[in-house]
């Protein structure tokens, strides 16, 4: 057997091992997934006459009671042992740090998969190598972060066991049938990650490279399944299923996992993790850019920052829609839960969230406008930027205007009524949807301008294409704004339905205008090269702003999602009887989120530093051709 054939065999075996690792937890757990498999033997032997049946609180199906009721906890050392500090805050900290790192290590492999794929399909050899090196560097960073994630996971479990033993005991008893799958998934994730990482240099070309790329797919499938399982815990806490009214497990683990909010939470988290991962990598690139001593380094990190930002924003754009779906499901599950979120106790936090979304999109656009400055020929777009700023600001102001908020009688009196004297009852959902859709459409427009910045279309139908594109965007704005205004004249329950055509309009811009632009720019005349590294320093602060704001928003949304349960550990099933069964003030939450965000960034900077120790040995020739060429990463740039 030749050397190449041996390598191929080795690679295929490694891939098979990864797939085996992926399937291992499922195969091992098959017997326990069967309905009723967890019923105690005693119950089975006693026969049907003594079997107690319960009704699923969500699915309304009947099942054999095989679990104990949710414990009725009492404030005391047995159920709520504590240090001389608020237990909830300690758990909040441990949970949030684990989530930040968990999101990062789940997002980076997806990121690497995309970048590695781009490297494989790019025809330009130099570019291909650069993409490959970039992906390799990031998986290396994720290895260090992976260890930290595991450590933080351990700390989280210890915190739970120490401070909330009764609550954790109950959740563990419910999820017992899949606990070992969860553990095996971790083993599989670690195994595949190491095979993927250490196999990198052994599988560099041709068929072997494709095998390696397939490994990243397997790695990401395992990571995603792991996240889905973790999500099932929070889904169960928010919208329990698979148990009866007393919280007794009814033997169907799929019902426990597949709760009302599980799917929207999964989708929201995948997109959120990716956007977050993009933000972290972009911040890393910005840091390296600002610390660079040579033009070559600056060019490299400018390019890296752009790729990371583009990938992050690609997932940020659909994120509000996923969030909208999640909220819709929350309302469908429990209307009062939705109202507590959007119009009640937690409404001010949603105003902060709206501000954060505005900041994220404004930062993205600002970065893109700054990036136009490093392209020769893009000057023609600069004079129009002020109009985009105006449109974005209008959309932002409409988006953050509240409609209904909880007011004290004094505030009510001061306002002279239920609605603000100047703003009236602006801020209804269709107007807010109008605001955010205008912002997203404008961001798409900024991207289109960026992608054609230094090019002039040479296709015969370019004039028609430009007019069509202009009319398409114009009609999109008109449609979105018209529907936002129309919403004021129709009943609320009809108004809710307007979100569908508004979102469809925005997505049409995304899915039709990008390909159209790409087709128009095929074989386009270059007005000048992209001068990587010549971007302003301010743009790098926009990337850092993007990353910090995203981290902050993750903390905020996690807090909102968790605190909407109010005084329930498991909504409507297990009551929180600890001394902390109240909701903190907005100010306290903001302080705590800031603390968590800053702690994460200080620690991740340490991780970056550790990663950079190894990266200093990266081959110099990889960076060689950077500034001159016009690389074609995501979206044509």
């Amino acid at each position, binding site marked *: 057997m030749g050397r190449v054939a041996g390598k191929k065999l080795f690679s295929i075996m490694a891939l098979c091992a990864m797939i085996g690792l992926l399937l291992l937890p499922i195969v091992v757990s098959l017997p326990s997934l069967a309905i009723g498999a967890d019923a105690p033997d005693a119950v089975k032997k006693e026969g049907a006459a003594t079997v107690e049946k319960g009704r699923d609180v969500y699915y309304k199906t009947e099942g054999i009671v095989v679990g104990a009721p949710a414990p009725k*906890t*009492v*404030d*005391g050392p047995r159920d709520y042992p504590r240090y001389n500090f*608020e237990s909830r805050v300690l758990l909040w900290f441990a949970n949030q740090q684990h989530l930040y790192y968990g999101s990062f290590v789940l997002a980076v492999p997806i990121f690497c998969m995309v970048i590695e794929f781009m490297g494989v399909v790019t025809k330009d050899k130099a570019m291909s190598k650069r993409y490959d090196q970039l992906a390799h560097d990031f998986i290396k960073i994720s290895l260090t972060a992976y260890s930290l994630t595991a450590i933080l996971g351990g700390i989280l479990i210890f915190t739970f066991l120490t401070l909330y033993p009764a609550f954790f005991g109950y959740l563990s008893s419910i999820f017992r049938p899949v606990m070992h799958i969860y553990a095996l998934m971790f083993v599989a994730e670690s195994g595949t990650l190491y095979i993927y990482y250490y196999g990198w240099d052994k599988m560099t070309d041709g068929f072997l490279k494709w095998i390696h790329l397939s490994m990243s797919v397997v790695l990401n499938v395992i990571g995603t399944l792991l996240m889905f399982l973790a999500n099932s815990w929070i889904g169960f806490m928010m919208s329990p299923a698979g148990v009866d009214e007393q919280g007794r497990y009814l033997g169907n683990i799929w019902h426990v996992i597949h709760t009302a909010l599980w799917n929207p939470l999964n989708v929201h988290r995948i997109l959120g993790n990716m956007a977050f991962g993009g933000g972290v990598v972009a*911040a890393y690139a*910005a*840091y390296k850019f*600002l*610390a660079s001593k040579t033009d070559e380094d600056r060019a490299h990190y400018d390019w890296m920052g752009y790729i990371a930002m583009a990938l992050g924003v690609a997932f940020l754009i659909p994120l509000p829609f996923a969030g909208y779906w999640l909220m819709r499901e929350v309302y*469908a599950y*429990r*209307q*009062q839960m939705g*109202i507590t979120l959007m119009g*009640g*106790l937690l409404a001010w936090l949603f105003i*902060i969230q709206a501000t*954060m979304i505005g900041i994220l999109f404004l930062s993205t656009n600002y970065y893109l406008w700054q990036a136009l400055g490093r392209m020769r020929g893009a000057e023609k777009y600069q004079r129009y930027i002020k109009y985009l700023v105006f449109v974005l600001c209008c959309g932002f102001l409409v988006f953050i205007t509240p409609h209904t*908020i*909880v*007011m*004290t*009688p004094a*505030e*009510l009196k001061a306002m002279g009524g239920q609605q603000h004297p100047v703003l009236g009852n602006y801020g209804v959902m269709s107007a807010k949807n109008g605001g955010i859709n205008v912002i997203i459409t404008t961001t798409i427009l900024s991207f289109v301008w960026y992608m054609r910045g230094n090019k002039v279309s040479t296709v015969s139908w370019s004039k028609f294409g430009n007019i069509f594109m202009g009319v398409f965007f114009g009609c999109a704005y008109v449609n979105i704004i018209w529907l936002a205004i129309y919403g004021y004249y129709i*009943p*609320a*329950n009809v108004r*809710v339905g307007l979100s569908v055509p508004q979102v469809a309009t925005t997505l049409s811009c995304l899915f039709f205008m990008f390909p159209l632009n790409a087709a128009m720019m095929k074989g386009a005349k270059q007005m000048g090269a992209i001068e990587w590294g010549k971007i302003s320093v301010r743009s790098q*602060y926009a990337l*850092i*702003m993007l990353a*910090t*704001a995203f981290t*902050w928003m993750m903390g905020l949304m996690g807090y909102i999602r968790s605190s909407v349960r*109010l*005084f329930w550990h498991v*909504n*409507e099933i297990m*009551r929180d*009887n600890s*001394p*902390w*069964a*109240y*909701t*903190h*003030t*907005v*100010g*306290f939450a*903001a*302080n705590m*989120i*800031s603390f968590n*965000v*800053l702690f994460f*960034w200080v620690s991740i*900077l340490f991780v970056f530093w550790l990663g950079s120790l190894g990266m200093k040995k990266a081959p110099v020739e990889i960076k060689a051709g950077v500034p001159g060429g016009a690389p074609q990463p995501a979206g044509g740039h």
Partner: protein
Amino acid sequence: MGDLIREALSIGWPLFALLAGLFVYSLISISDPVAKKRATFKLFIGMMAAFMLLLAIAHYKGSFYEANRMLPVSLVLVTALCFMMGIYFPNHAAMLKIGGFMFLVAAGLSGYGNWLPQVEGGFPPKEEKLDFSSMTAQQLADEGEKIIFGGIGKNKEQGAVGKGQCPLCHAFHAGMLGERAPNLMGLPERAGKDRLADPKYSKGNPQARDYEQKESFPGSGTAETAQEYIAESHSCPSCYVVVGYGVKGTNDKTSPMPPIHKPPISLSLPELAAVDTWLWVREGRDAPSYEEIIKSYEKFIPEADRPKQQEDKPAGAASALLADGTETVDQIFTKAQCIMCHTIPGIPGALGKQGPVLEEGTNAPNRIKDPAYKGTAHSTPEYIMESVVSPSTYVVKGFPDNLMPKVFGQKLSAGALKKIVDYLSQVKAGSPPPKIS
């Protein structure tokens, strides 16, 4: 400011000691006068920056639990010093500037959160054991208003929500648009006339209904009177759904309203009787008797499903606590009987002499500095907490040890302790007492 500086110094003295050591080392080891001058200057800048950082940390630490609108100043201080350090330590300038910028963003967002109106979700509603059956209709209606809106006379306040959570979705007055659920103005009349007569309601023939549920439970049948209609609506919202108010996508076959006798609301039958009585009485109509209302609910809620009053409350939970933190601070002092032994400025009746006067804003810093003090507190709030939970840690001269009970750590909730600490921290000798909250 003085307290803040003292706190900063107490936190950061090791850092200052290190910097001072470096200063001495540089004076001794560097012989070149220019280099010595430069090193001295850098150390001076380092000292200044460290002081600002520690001041910021002390400020953040002292007001972490409060909605303090000055809090972001701490983070802005850190930002400023990061940028300043970046100038003098160019090798790490990028890292420092990025760190500083992140602090600035966090400061802005923290400030924003603290600037907004501070809404705090209270503890779960306290369940009082009331004998509804012996109340008059008006008393019952008052209790009903409390359950719906959280207090008597609150039915016209926007945002007033009680244990029943009804106003989250329903409107109760003419002209108010119930966007999520029908306006309940005129319900007693509408229930008896329109609703029962609606062919979709299928009075007397539940099997003909085209809703998610045909009956509240097998054999419960349909309502025959207006009160029974109200009872059925509360206990089985999906037995009949008003057009336009169903869950989206179900074609008005499923109601978004949860059964009110089940979690999360879990009103007991007597509480439901109070709610229904208010619905009748507020329109100037004679309400059915308490017994009639209870009977109407018994028709639609089987025995096993009827929540008992205080069912969710674990045995002994309430009795174990003297105060759970929902009370105002003067009530907490009274319930814990602090007022019997201590004089507490600003608290009515707190004139006790067995213990020291609780002017802890002034006393605590001095006691921490007392050489006889062996506790672990470094700040006023920590000292107060320690004194309440572990009174023998430091006994004020002239007062006996072991007089104060050592059970307050278990007998007061964290919320109650926090209120005590917050209040006493602000009581200073010679200053007007703080507001009671």
